[in-house]
């Protein structure tokens, strides 16, 4: 559908349409864009450094915890005198085995609850 426009008003709009000098305007915009880009890079660098420092700070305690787990997980729950039986039942008769059974049981229980 065409739009009927007043010729006088259209003429005035056309006359008023000027070509403003754009060099300064464009330079201002590009300066803003470059500044934002620098800030973004700085922010990413800062976050990266914070993450590295955080990882370095927690590395030793995490490693100690892992070492402790490695030591206690194979510990037997019940001392068995018969060596062969002790070896056969070692996977179950250990803290690791207890943890594994516990995780499996929890998983089954959750599956039943959610189904």
């Amino acid at each position: 559908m065409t739009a009927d426009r007043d010729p006088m008003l259209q003429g005035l709009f056309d006359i008023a349409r000027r070509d403003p000098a754009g060099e300064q305007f464009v330079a201002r915009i590009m300066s803003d864009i470059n500044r934002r880009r620098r800030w973004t890079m700085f922010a990413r660098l800062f976050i990266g450094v914070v993450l590295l420092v955080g990882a370095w700070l927690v590395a030793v305690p995490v490693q100690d915890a892992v070492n402790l787990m490695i030591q206690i997980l194979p510990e037997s729950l019940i001392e068995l005198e018969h060596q062969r039986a002790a070896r056969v039942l070692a996977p179950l008769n250990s803290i690791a085995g207890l943890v594994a059974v516990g995780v499996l049981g929890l998983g089954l229980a959750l599956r039943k609850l959610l189904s």
Partner: protein
Amino acid sequence: MPPGPDYYSRSPEVLLVGLARSGDRKAFEALVNRRQAWIRNLLRRCCGDVTLADDLAQQTFLQAWSNLPRLQRPSRFGAWLKRVALNVWLQQRRKPDPLAEAVEWSPTGEARREPAAVAIDLDRALATLPEPVRLCIVLSYHERMTHQEIAEFVGLPLGTVKSHIRRGSERLRERLSAYRDAPRIEEQP
């Protein structure tokens, strides 16, 4: 080997948009160069204040740079940019409108068809219109959009758009009646 200085100024807009989307700032600068006059004129007609219009135009291009990766069809860059500009103006509109408290408009004096004088009088006359009417008038006369296109663009019923344009045109004719009889002067290039 980097492109020569004429590469961007000679490239079609679709190519520039594609390059700018991938982060090419030179390509975006070329786009700004090409579109800045249009956007600034559009916003000047909308808000009637040259300084404010340039600030809004600056915000428009900064938002365009940030959101350019979301533009799915580079061939629709012009229409998309116009949408960004008008959204920026509409957000500005939600702030208290200083023009609402402006002194009652009166003609500057003898009407001469010099671009600068016409622009001032036109902007003053537009400022007396309610904002929805002003927007419809600008889209009709400045952007030469049809009533249907305006209705789809601003999300108003077609009848409302026609009514806005009719009332706005009547008021503008009244305010700018001095130009009806003003001698024509060759437009400055």
